[in-house]
């Protein structure tokens, strides 16, 4: 196990792995998929990533990494800068105290938790967006985005689980 070499308190490149996965998820969000109306309801893949790492390895996805991922997301999608970063940081802050409830549970339980976090996040995003733009944004699009975000969570979690098993040492 090459990964075991990296001890907890020491810095190693392995620590950057979750950050890299978060940035990959952010990039995947903005890919032009040519699906009608996809862009306005594109799932918040990075949120799923932050949720996953906050539960399983919060020490490997510190606030700074989450912040960086949020900024990348904002820069890529052309929205107001700081919104994605704020959203992901608050999501991390909300999940962190609860992580013990989730860490050794079965997947459906973790997924349930994510549906709630995603609902809160998208509602927050919708309110913040409406505030910034000074007009109510389309609530139906926000709800569809929530459904898609929740629906894509298993795929994201599976991908991150494989990454974690492959290169992140156990706690």
């Amino acid at each position: 196990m090459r990964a075991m070499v990296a001890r907890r308190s020491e810095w190693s490149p392995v620590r950057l792995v979750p950050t890299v996965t978060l940035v990959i998820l952010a990039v995947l969000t903005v890919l032009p998929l040519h699906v009608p109306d996809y862009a306005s309801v594109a799932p918040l893949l990075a949120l799923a990533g932050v949720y996953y790492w906050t539960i399983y390895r919060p020490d490997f996805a510190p606030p700074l990494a989450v912040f960086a991922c949020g900024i990348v997301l904002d820069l890529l999608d052309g929205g107001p800068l700081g919104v994605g970063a704020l959203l992901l940081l608050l999501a991390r802050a909300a999940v962190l105290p609860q992580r013990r409830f989730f860490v050794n549970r079965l997947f459906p339980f973790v997924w349930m938790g994510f549906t709630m976090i995603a609902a809160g996040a998208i509602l927050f995003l919708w309110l913040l967006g409406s505030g910034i733009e000074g007009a109510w944004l389309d609530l139906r699009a926000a709800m569809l985005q929530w459904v898609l975000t929740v629906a894509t969570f298993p795929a994201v979690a599976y991908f991150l689980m494989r990454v974690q098993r492959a290169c992140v040492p156990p706690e």
Partner: protein
Amino acid sequence: MRLAVPIKVVGQRFGLPILVLASVAMIVLGKADTLLFERMRSGFADSAAPVLRIISEPVAAIDSVVGDFRDLFALRSENARLRVDNERLLRWQQVAQGLEVENGRLRELLKLTPDPSASFVTGRVIANSGGAFVRSVLIDAGNGAGVVRGQAAITGEGLVGRVTEVGERAARILLVTDLNSRIPVAVDGSRERAVLAGDNSDEPRLVYLPPRSALKVGDRLVTSGNGGIFPPGLPVGVVSGITDGIIRVQPYAELSRLDFLRIVDYGLNGVLPQAVAPRPPKPARGGRAG
């Protein structure tokens, strides 16, 4: 290692609040001063463009394969439709050729100043905006290819939006459906002026129409050329519904399936001498599309 511990503790304890505050500050600053962030954005888009282009290529390839299969199933009906279309268009072509000759002769008689000719830059869409906030796309052509802020982006069908941020290799196009998009348009035929205002829905609204306008569903809208940045006469969309005084417009361009965009260079608002802008060989204006 030991010296680093207090810094680490401080970082762990206050890192989150500091970063949350930084994010909020960015949102507020972005609302107040957009120029700084715009530079940041275009700089980032520049460096991300090659990566995005590489990733978006297989996605586009898969998409085209899926599209091919879908087309295969629709081949028979498509063929029939195209045959009917072709017949109709051939008739139109004859009419148009006649009109073109007549138009040319009349223009000559009137000594009309020709409109400045437009040239085009083509770019591929490499990123969509996600979420309910913005309707914009990133294309892989920027300053280097001659893209300038404010230029119109079109597809074969019609107007897509306006260039809002330009980097060296990438540019962001604000779609006509975006909340912040305002396009001066004219009703084809009556030449009534209005403004097409996006509201993040699929069908932007038509505002500032003159009072007692005879606008009806199905009327065609084209760019009016007011403001001097867009060439006049670019097809924009059709009036799709009038309810309670709110006029909705269905854009001609299929905004959810954008692939390649053409950026119209109108030759610096016609200030440049005619010889500088490459002229299309035909007497017809290059700016007309679709």
